[in-house]
């Protein structure tokens, strides 16, 4: 498995420090037993209503794409970033493909278990985005406003 991390608008191969992972259900069943865990793996059908209490203390959250067509983790990542202000790493696992990594970064993912080489050119394929998302990219409408104000 290869790991890419996203920072400063670039994807770079990262050293795979061993993670001490725990699944959300196991963690909730017995927090004591998993006190040393550093990464929380959340299945993509888990309800996130009260996840905020679980997040603190984990430096990594792992979200899953069982197939690239199953897009639930995009919503989960945004909720974890935008609603619960989680600032640790959000890692994408599973069917992580070149042509989806841009969407993932926009939703707040910043680490990718990615088999197939470099994906930086895929990130550069679009200069603008219409909507605000977890990546804090200036949406087109805001750029239009600033431009109109400057004119």
């Amino acid at each position, binding site marked *: 498995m290869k790991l890419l991390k996203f920072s400063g608008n670039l994807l770079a191969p990262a050293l795979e420090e061993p993670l001490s992972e725990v699944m959300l259900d196991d963690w909730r069943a017995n927090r004591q037993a998993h006190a040393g865990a550093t990464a929380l793996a959340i299945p993509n059908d888990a309800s996130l209503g009260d996840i905020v209490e679980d997040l603190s203390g984990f430096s990594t959250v792992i979200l899953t794409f069982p197939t690239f067509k199953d897009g639930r983790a995009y919503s989960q990542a945004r909720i974890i970033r935008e609603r619960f202000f989680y600032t640790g790493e959000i890692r994408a696992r599973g069917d992580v493909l070149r042509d989806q990594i841009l*969407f993932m970064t*926009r939703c707040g993912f910043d680490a990718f278990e990615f088999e197939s080489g470099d994906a930086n050119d895929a990130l550069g394929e679009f200069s603008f*985005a219409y909507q605000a998302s977890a990546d804090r990219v200036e949406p087109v409408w805001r*750029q239009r406003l600033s431009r109109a104000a400057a004119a």
Partner: protein
Amino acid sequence: MYRYDEFDATIVAERVSQFRGQVERRLAGELTEDQFKPLRLMNGLYLQLHAYMLRVAIPYGTLSSKQMRMLSAIARKYDKGYGHFTTRQNIQFNWPALVDVPDILDDLASVEMHAIQTSGNCIRNVTSDQYAGAAADEIEDPRIWCEVIRQWSTFHPEFSFLPRKFKIAVTASDTDRAAVKVHDIGLRLHKNDAGEAGFEVIVGGGLGRTPYVGHTIREFLPKKYLLSYLEAILRVYNLEGRRDNLYKARIKILVNSEGATTFADMVEAEWAAIKKNEIDLPAEEIDRIRDYFAPPAFDKLPETSAALEERRNSDKDFARWLRTNTHEHKTPGYAIVNISLKPIGGIPGDASDVQMAAVADIAEQYSHDEIRVTHEQNLVLPHVKRDDLYAVWKALDAQALATPNIGLVSDIIACPGLDYCSLANTRSIPIAQRISERFADLNEEEDIGELKIKISGCINACGHHHVGHIGILGVDKKGEEFYQITLGGSGAEDASLGEIVGRGLSSGDAVDAVEKLIGFYRQRRQSGERFLDTYRRLGAEPFKEALYEAA
């Protein structure tokens, strides 16, 4: 009409380059067909029976003459001289070569068009009222909001891999010409008691294998919250919609399994949590978009046109076309013209490159450069002076585009069916052709009155048969084509789903059955009743009996 600024133009151009790269990777064998298929589908490129099929988006069904001319040129240069207008206000080309598609997309981009999100499990091209901006009964131009949604939904990072495709329609009139109750989300702009405009939000309608009429989950949504509310609905759907079964993955299944009230609560809770995020557009940006939809500079004209009245009295064919194919315009002295793409015995929705170019010219000269595509697979010239109607009729007639049958029995919706579609069970087009030939007598058609016949070649229901006054669904039985008839559907403001009557019929019997049903209606109708009204008054039974008594 909306015009691209450099942001819109850049995004579309970059999409073409991205796809060009994907095609190159596929041709070089770096991508397998399995890997490439979802990528090409996201750009509206299917592989059908005989060839690739490219579906080009016509956002909310609005085209300029320049854009129509480009569609004509593409049909001529890259296809076999025609295109097919669809029930989602798009156009499909049936024969493009894969190697040419990036160039076609470049040509489209040069006139501010694209094929983005015309397929795939994402938010599809938003549809609207074909009379938008011209109808007397609208509150405001619904296309303003369609364009707002178009931008928000384009490459939405969270909603590009939904459980299933997602279709939104917007109307701003009491008369529903956009079929908002049979969409994943239907938005109806209306005024509340305080006189403010807002949206009725209807969710969970749809056709296909399990048809539903949508549920209203909010009577009144202030306009400024449109995008945050949509985002809440889409998020609930993305997280909770079923993914284990293709046929249960549309939002209608979720809404109906949770119940509309519970679903509404889920949406409201999500909305409360995200409403304050910067999703909704500021008023300045909405105004910027609104300005593009300002009405064209209409002349001040008298209500009636003497020249028109004279022609109406002297030319019976013209008078008939005026009755069937024109509609009242909000501005005195103007009319809305419907262009029928349903010549008797023709292929519903097909237009040749020559016809497209002619429509472009006519629109440029007589309709402020605007053309609309209807979900009933016809075209519209939205702003024609009444004084010019005769000249427009002559020009359309010269191109076989003036069949006076809008809303009548030969104005049939038919999906491509097994003549083109790789998912089809049976052909659809030949049935439409035969029904249309059977009722070739236009006097008879006018006497029968409004009648919506809709035909699908399989349960996917692209031909909207569930909401046909008479619906016809093709089913395959051991390699033979059979047709199942439904009665009493409607996709309009009085939406309802048709009821299946009896067993499957051979194609010849199906055409006879339609004739019998219509004959029965004509015997039993009361004055002023449409087929649908008589059916609703009498119920299914007598129609069934009429259908089978002589058989």
